[in-house]
């Protein structure tokens, strides 16, 4: 039982990160913290992909390097996903700057009241 968990501990951490990210997105009142939660959520996914792509004692995927090669494909997937995550965070932060200028606060409940009063 312990061995089963110990083999899969990285997967558990990845799922834990997904859960933490989701809770941050839902539970925090500050908008910036929600965006950070979104980043944590995406980091969980990256960790999952990295764990599945890990090959012990492997070398870069070059013909001149010794035998077990790492497959470059998951690395490219994660890289692309990271770039997507960064650009989403950038857009989200731009929107938050605009929201702050309009409403003067970053607290979700306060904004909800302000919007309801409009």
């Amino acid at each position, binding site marked *: 039982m312990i061995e089963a968990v110990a083999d899969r501990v990285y997967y558990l951490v990845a799922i834990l990160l997904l859960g933490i990210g989701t809770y941050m997105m839902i539970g925090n009142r500050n908008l910036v913290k929600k965006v950070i939660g979104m980043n944590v959520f995406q980091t969980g996914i990256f960790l999952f992909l990295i764990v599945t792509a890990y090959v012990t004692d492997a070398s*870069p995927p*070059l013909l001149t390097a010794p035998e077990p090669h790492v497959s470059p494909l998951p690395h490219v997937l994660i*890289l692309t996903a*990271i*770039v997507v995550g960064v*650009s989403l965070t*950038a*857009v989200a*932060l*731009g*929107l938050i*700057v*605009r929201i*702050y*200028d*309009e*409403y*003067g*606060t*970053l607290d979700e409940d306060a904004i909800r009241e302000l919007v309801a009063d409009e």
Partner: protein
Amino acid sequence: MTDDTTDPTTDDGEQDRPTSGEPQESADPVAEKPRESVDSVAEEPRESVDSVAEESAGGDELVAEEPPGPYVESPIIMATVRIITPFVFTLGLFVMFHGADSSGGGFQGGVIVGTVVLMLGIAFGIEVTREWIGPRLPVGLVAVGVLVFLTIGVGSVLLGGDFLEYEEYGIHHASKYGIELVELAIGLIVAGIVTGLFFVIAGGMADSEGDLA
């Protein structure tokens, strides 16, 4: 002494500041989010120009208090940045070129090159750096990068092959050079976007949508 008469951004008032107290004060407001309430941080003329510029640019009555600008002048940071910047830029280019057989590639290199501008902005003043960069350079970099990539792609179609088929170009090792060029183009795009976004967010005002490719 970090005095430097050739640096246009230093002010006379800075020389009086004791350097021992400097890291403390500069660390504090930099660490605080600008959203917190205004502290009794001594506002240098540069910072007050910044905050006045931001206030006149975008402050309206909905903003509760005037947030302290993100720029705090510090001779240590200025000196360090002045020395490090070329090396960071070179590192960025190195990372861009070496994506094929070691860690790196277009995205990472582009971010590092973009960080150069961020460092200059944080060290010497965001408004000044923004004026130096100009409104067109980030957009221009992004546009040139995308055009290079699309030209490589469509060029191979015009030469009779598939989209982005490097072998059509007939150069020796066309695939390697083609991918290298695409990585550089991606680096340009990412550097342009990082720079542009930094100024948009740090400026703290409208126009924060739109050309976020």
